[in-house]
């Protein structure tokens, strides 16, 4: 009886794991097929392994430019958002300002604002600033969108730090900047890394804003570029799947190396 029950539990989880991973498997196997190979047998393993789809992407599409744009946008917005959020969270947790609780509550409310609702005003602003088709347009927008969750994340983390640590530094006459850099940051490494990963995934995967703000082919991010080229190459499934695979490859590698950071960071919105 118990054996039967534990076997059925195993079976349930195995089925679920297969369903969860199947699209990934589909992307990889399809990317390694030729178009005719895919048409003849869409589900099976590739009969003739080919890497021509990958080389075609790099030679026919501005793929490297898109990757570069995505990297720049991700790095810039994540670094700026993380730094200013750490400072703000430090002020909320260890500062005396009266408004800090109001600020924090407003900040939590902003976490759930749909980005699409901000799209028209931000677009007209960027038109006025002549930033359309330029990366700073999306970097500014992404950076603002990342701040609420980042502040929320760091405030929750800082609140768990024993106050005695900060107090001791204070008694020694340390200034706030010194407390932040010498006392708080050295013990915040893992948390900061977690947050950087969560934020980087958001920016790397984002489509809508990139689509609207970057309309010229060489200014696009990877996701926007692939999304627009799918229409042009709609009948060449292996080519599109090769592009899809390359777009998720960095995430796959990071996930295999450090899934605990993903899990911890992406579920941090729950509770508190």
């Amino acid at each position: 009886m118990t054996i039967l029950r534990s076997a059925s539990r195993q079976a349930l989880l195995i089925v679920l794991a297969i369903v969860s991973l199947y699209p990934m498997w589909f992307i990889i196997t399809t990317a390694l097929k030729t178009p005719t190979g895919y048409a003849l047998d869409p589900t099976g393993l590739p009969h003739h392994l080919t890497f021509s789809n990958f080389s075609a992407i790099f030679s026919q599409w501005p793929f490297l430019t898109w990757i570069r744009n995505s990297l720049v946008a991700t790095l810039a917005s994540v670094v700026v958002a993380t730094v200013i959020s750490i400072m703000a969270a430090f002020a909320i947790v260890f500062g005396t300002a009266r408004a800090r609780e109001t600020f924090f509550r407003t900040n939590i409310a902003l976490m759930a604002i749909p980005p699409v609702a901000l799209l028209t005003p931000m677009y007209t602003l960027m038109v006025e600033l002549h930033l359309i088709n330029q990366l700073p347009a999306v970097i500014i927008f992404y950076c603002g969108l990342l701040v609420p969750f980042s502040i929320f994340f760091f405030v929750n983390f800082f609140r768990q730090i024993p106050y005695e640590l900060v107090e001791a530094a204070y008694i020694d006459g340390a200034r706030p900047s010194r407390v932040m850099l010498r006392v708080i940051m050295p013990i915040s490494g893992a948390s900061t890394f977690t947050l950087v990963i969560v934020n980087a995934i958001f920016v790397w995967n984002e489509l809508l804003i990139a689509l609207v703000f970057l309309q010229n082919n060489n200014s696009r991010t990877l996701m926007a570029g692939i999304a627009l080229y799918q229409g042009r190459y709609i009948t060449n499934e292996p080519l599109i799947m090769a592009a899809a695979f390359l777009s998720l490859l960095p995430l796959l590698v990071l996930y295999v190396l450090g899934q605990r950071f993903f899990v911890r960071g992406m579920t941090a919105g729950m509770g508190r």
Partner: protein
Amino acid sequence: MTIARTRRSTAERALPKGRYIPRRRRTIWPYAYAAPALVALCLVFGYSFVEVVRYSLYSGSLGSLTYVGFSNYSALFTDPVFIQSLFDNLKLLVTVPVVTVLALIVALVINSGVRGWRLYRVLIFFPYVLPAVAIGLAFSYILQGGGVFNTLAQDAHLNFLVHDWLGSPKWVIFSIGGVIVWQQLGFGVVVFTAALLAVPAELVEAAQIDGARWWTVQWKIMIPHIRRIIQFFVILEAITALSSVFTYVYILTGGGPAYSSSVIEFYIYQYGFEDGAIGIASAAAVFLLAMSSVFIALYLWVRTRSAREEQS
């Protein structure tokens, strides 16, 4: 225990209002530290809130805007495409109970001890990390007329599952909803298993000694114990269904066929940026903001309640 608690409360009384760096009575450094973030928030959120409301009262394209009062809003509710988009969002809200119940069942099963559960959890969580563009593209091939899904269903003689999943107005919203469930499930499983691990083992043991059955234990002890987390999860998923499904719609169907799978996000994109009708798009955005603020208020309410419970 008592001593520790007394000591802490005296310490709290000695420090006015919590923990802080008491440099001088009135210091300005917290404002200076919060300033850059505040500027970013004011620019992206504050400025946008004001401007989106203003634009919703104008018609025409950029550079030639004319004031039209509230007529964009009335135009919105007489536009069948907007009504369709709104209803599609509401239909997608059905994914919330589906994901919640499925994730809860899986988490309860995992929690009652399955060999290798950590690995399963890592595998099931993986879809949540993946870019919606890549997932959308894969599913657009898997679900198309002669695609993998229909082929497999046919081979298994499950003919009721064979449909034109992306081409028929009747089924297309199910496809989008299905992909959302597929991606969000792992998130729910991870959130719920983490919460279940924190349920004190004594509670479960006591019930088992009293002869309670597996389901009774789950229903009477486990689920009530993590109800706050379930509430948080439901609210977050509702916000997701309402305001971050654009990528799936754009990639899987392009809102089609004939706007049958359009959602409010897609409507705003279509009107504001493909057709250049800034006013209408802004009115739809204001409407979406109003809808999501209901869920934000709920989130803050649950948060306050759970903080109060933790203190008592």
